[in-house]
Each structure stands twice: as C-alpha cells, then as structure tokens.
C-alpha cells in the first residue's frame, strides 16, 4: 500500500466512521440513555433518506440538500414522537418486548414505503459545491465526505449542548437517573421521554438524508447499518457520547483498513464484526464504561 492507498483508507474511515457515529448517535440516546431497543432505527434512517428524496427530487419539491437535512430531521423526528406516544411508552421496562414490537414497526414502515415508492433505487443529486474533490498533497478526498464529517461534528455538538447546557437536557438526565424523584419534583417525565425519543429519531433522519446522498436511496438501506450501529453503542459504552464517537471511529477505521488490506468489503465486515464481538465479550461494559454500580 502506498500513500495514496492510505490516503483513501483514511478518507474512507473518516466518512464511514462519521456515518456510523451519525447512525449510532440516535441509538446512543434511545438505547444508551433511555434503554429502549429501537429495531426500527434503520427504517427511521430509510425514512429520512426518502424524505430527502422527496425534498430534493425535481418531480416533487426540487429543493437542495441544505433544505433536505432539517426537513428530514423534522419529518422523522415527528414520526419518532408518534412512535413513542403510541407504542414505546407502554413498553418501558420490557426491553426485549420493545425489541420485538419495534421490529414489527420496521417491517410495516419498510413495506409501506415499498408500496408507495417501488423497489427501484432512487438517485440523489448533490449541490455542485459538494461534488468535487479536495486535494491534500497526493490525497484527494471527496468534498461530500468532508461535509459528512462536518455534519456529524455539528450533530455531536448539538447533542452535547442540548444534554449538558440546556434545562431540558438537565431534565433528561434527571429522569434517567431517578424517574420517580424527577417526577416528584414536577418534571413531566412523559414529555421528557417523548421529546427525547423524537429528537434521537430525528437524528436518524439526518443520518439517512446524508447517507442517501452518499449512495442511493432504497427500502432496505437502513437494515444494513442497524446491527453495526448497535455494536458501536455497546462497544463504546452505554450512555457515553465519547464512547459512541470512539466506537464509531474504531469500527469505521477498522472496516476501511481491513478492506484496503484484503480488497474485499464484505470479508472486512466479517472480520471487524468478529473483533467487535470479541471486544464486547472481553469488556461487556464497553470501552468507556460509566463508573457506576447497578443492580442487574
């Protein structure tokens, strides 16, 4: 491997890592913080991509990517709100049942989108600014991949500020720490739950929008990311933004480097998944385990 290869691997790890982080960010909130297993997270991603398709395609709205990102966030976030209010809230404390129910939601969403939009791949068009390459010495990195890194950074920053610098974030942390106490102090835990869930789902929408512009939009696009996204959250450590970032970067970088060495994307995936499983076995609480003792 020469410098160009390493450059390509680096740019790939950066973008793949950011995509994983962006996908896992929503999960880090719903799964890591709220302890809800949303198996439909991949389908939320897909909904975000289709929302972006509807927004950007000339046959529908014909706007550009910059509009698509916030609209995807809002549309999918609203869907997440409905999901929480109509289904998830009945299932708190039954994580395995949540898993099954949300898998059902995923099936329905996928099929409805399939019936609505058909099975064909939807091409997406980038704004011209993002179409070229930026060259650093011998290494050329597609501008859009850098844009993804920037969007991921922005989302991380927003989540951080929202959690640690707003009064609503304080309420979320209070509810997560001690639901009964928070409720006794006058926090509407219902509202906190549903809004947090909606926000996290909206992030999946952003991820889908960004991902749809990178590849193509298709019905089963979310399913291929969901398992890895869960692995990112577990590998990093539950309830830790740092952990999610580290997990996403590790898995993304691992995938691209092994892929460069082997020259086979799928086998790289197998090896990295195997390594991640081994890592979780060795350190079940994740790389950045929160130092706390819990019963069970």
């Amino acid at each position, binding site marked *: 491997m020469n410098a160009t290869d390493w450059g390509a691997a680096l740019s790939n790890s950066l973008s793949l890592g950011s995509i994983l982080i962006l996908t896992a960010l929503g999960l880090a909130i719903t799964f890591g*913080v709220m*302890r809800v*297993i949303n198996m439909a997270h991949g389908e939320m991603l897909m909904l975000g991509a289709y929302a972006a398709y509807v927004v950007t395609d000339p046959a529908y709205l014909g706007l550009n990517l910059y509009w698509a990102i916030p609209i995807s966030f809002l549309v999918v976030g609203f869907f997440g709100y409905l999901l929480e209010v109509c*289904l998830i809230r*009945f*299932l708190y*404390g*039954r*994580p*395995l*049942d*949540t*898993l*099954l*129910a949300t*898998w*059902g*939601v*995923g*099936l*329905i969403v*996928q*099929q*409805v989108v*399939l*019936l609505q939009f058909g099975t064909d791949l939807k091409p997406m068009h980038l704004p011209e600014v993002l179409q070229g390459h930026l060259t650093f010495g011998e290494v050329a990195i597609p501008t859009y991949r850098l844009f993804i890194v920037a969007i991921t950074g922005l989302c991380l920053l927003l989540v951080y500020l929202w959690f640690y610098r707003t009064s609503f974030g304080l309420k979320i942390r209070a509810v*997560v*720490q*001690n*639901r009964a106490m928070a409720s006794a102090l006058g926090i509407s835990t219902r509202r906190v739950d549903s809004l947090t869930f909606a926000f996290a789902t909206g992030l999946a929408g952003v991820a889908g929008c960004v991902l749809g512009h990178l590849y193509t939009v298709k019905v089963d696009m979310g*399913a291929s990311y969901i*398992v890895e996204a*869960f*692995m990112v959250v*577990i590998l990093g450590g*539950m*309830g830790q933004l740092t952990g999610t970032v580290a997990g996403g970067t590790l898995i993304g970088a691992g995938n691209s480097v092994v892929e460069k060495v082997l020259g*086979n994307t*799928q*086998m790289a*995936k*197998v090896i990295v*998944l*195997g390594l*991640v*499983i081994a890592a*979780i*076995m060795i350190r*079940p609480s994740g790389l950045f385990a*929160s130092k*706390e003792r*819990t*019963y*069970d």
Partner: protein
Amino acid sequence: MTSPATPLNSVPSPQPARSPWLCDAFVALFLVALFLPAYFFAGDRYWLPLFTRYMALAIFALSVDLIWGYTGLLSLGQGLYFGLGVYAVGYSLKLQQAWHAAGRTTPYVPGPDMPLPDFMAYCRLPHVPAWIQPLIDVRLALFLAVFLPTVAATLFGLVTFRLRIKGVFFSLVTQALLLAVFTLVDNNQPITGGRVGMTYLNKLELFGAKFQMLSMYYLVTGTLVVAFLGCALLTRSKFGRILTAIRDNENRVLALGYNTAMYKTFIFAVAGGLAGLAGALYVAAMGTAGPDRLDIAFSIEVVILVAVGGRGTLLGAILGAVLVNLANTLTSDAYPQYWPILLGALFIGVVLFLPEGIVGGVLKLAARVRRWRETVPEPVPVAAKEPALPPLDLPAPAVAPEPKGV
C-alpha cells in the same frame, strides 16, 4: 444512570392448570392432531410439503422457546445453529445429487475425484474441498447437523454466560454473530453457493428408505413429537424449574448458590442442537439450502412464532409456528404485498395485547373463570335440597399447585 431493577421478561408465567391430567390429555390430543394433515392432504403436492415445512419450523420454535420462553434468553441469532444443520445436510444431498447427475452408481465414495456440484463447477473449483467430501454420507451429515450446533452453542454459551452478558446485550451480540456468519457464507460462493445457495437437492435416503411427501411428513412430525416430549420432560424436571427461576429472577437464583451460567449454557446447547436438527429436516423437506435461513429477519420471525403461540409453553411454540406460517401462506397467496404489514402488526399486537400468547391467554382466562367460580357461592337451593352430596368441584389444595408448563 440507574436503571430500575425490572426483570427483562416481566410477563408472568402462565397460571398452573387446575387439573394437570386434563391438560395432558389435551396436549396428547394436540400431538395426535399434528398428523391430521397427512390424512387430509395425503396426495396434495402443494399443501403437504407446506405442512412439512411448518412442522420443521415448529421444531425450531421449540428450540427458541426453551431459551427464551423458559430461560429468558432472547437469542436473535438462533438461525446460526439452524443454518449449520441446513448446510450440513444441504451439502450431503447436493453431493449425492451431483453423484447421480454424473451417472455414477451407489455406494457413494468420498474422494477428490467426486463429481462437482453445479455451483462449485460454475466457480471453477478443481475438486470438492476435502472437508466437504465425507458429508456425502447423509448419516454423518445428520449427526454433524446436531453435533456442530451443540458444540458451537456450548462454546458461545460458556463465554457469554460466564462473562454475565445478558438481556439485550445477549440478544444484540447473538445477532451480530449471525450477521457475521451470514456475510461469510454469502460471500464465499465457490464453497457455499453464495446468495442462491444449493438447489435441486437429492431426496433424503436413510437406511434404505427414501423420504418424500408422506414419509417425509411423518419423519418431520414424528421428530417434532419426540422433541416435544423431550422438552416437556426437561422443562418439568427440577432442572426446568431452575430455568424458569433464572428467567424470573436470576440474582435470587445466584444467591441461592446455583451456578446459573452452567444452567444457561446447558439449555443453550440443547436449544442449539434442536435448532440444528430442525434445520436438517427443513432442508431435507424443502430441497434447497440457502443463506436466507441465516438472515437476521428469519431468526426474529421465529421468535414471533413463539410469542404468538405463547412463550414459556411448549404447546404454544408449535401452535404459533403452524398458525403464523399458515396465515403467511394464505395471505401471501392472495395479497403478497400485505403480508409484511400483517406480520409487523402481529409483532406489535402480540407484545401490546397478548404478551402471554394464545396458550398463555387461554390459561389466564381459565384461571380467571376458576377464580370467579370459587368466589361466587354455590346456589343455595341445591345445597339445601341435598346437603349430603359433596360439591362436584375438588376442594382447593392447601398448597399452591406445582407450576406446570404445557
């Protein structure tokens, strides 16, 4: 961040039935009824193979029920063990088919000069890989179809359970493992047949008998009944009692001095072997072996079979497998595009409204009726007329009746 100590499987176990022998009689009747399709669809080339398929899936559902319904371990990767069975027997029947296609006569002799199965020939493999060759003997393949998953599940269980990986972490790790194996199989087309897998398999021939149509149905359903009885013995024993205790409160069982990791490993290994057996029969009945059985969706759908029928009841696993798959066939015949929506609704509906499943729901209803009958006093005139007659109902036992899975 302290999560409340809620049990992962907070659905209460079904109420014990008042009269166990009545339940047993009903179960026996149900098991006999499993053979009815052989009578009604004896010559039907459409329905009989379908029912054979349902019965093989019912064995798989039993395996999931053992670990999820009874022990509270939701494995989303049970398809891995099923898949081992599928591929072991798949290779065997494919090699046999290639053997006959090349015009050779039995007995089969494994060796480097064996005729290549079509998918290996497409990929220009020079000869059948040495580790696949002996599989042409279907007895060996059937043995490995049960043995390999058992060993794999034991190893996986030993590591995960001793590290006390449980709950959703266990589910997600099993799922990731399944995804890794699926990708591996999917991408090694010369050896595995890739996305298509192996098609046009030979019919299963065992001890001089050729299994197809009716005999295949009897073989699969007979195995199902034997598996059911074995599982019933296991779950009704003291061992089974400890499994349900682990499901309901593992910490307490640990505190009582039980090595829960070993109990969980054992039942996981049994379930793995059972899944492998189910896979072996499934592929023999279907005539194709492909990676779709290693798909993540397939493993989750088996869980819903158990959930619909009634988790923690063996009868429920079989009932769910037959009913849901029957619904699948009927819906897919008429409106294939709506089946995923219906299935999704089933997932949601069962979890929300019928967490104990059909069998659990019926048992609960029966318990409610019984309680209602006990609280309502017997009509006075009858008692006044013939005071000497003892009440028809047996008196309530002083000790709570033993919990008994159906």
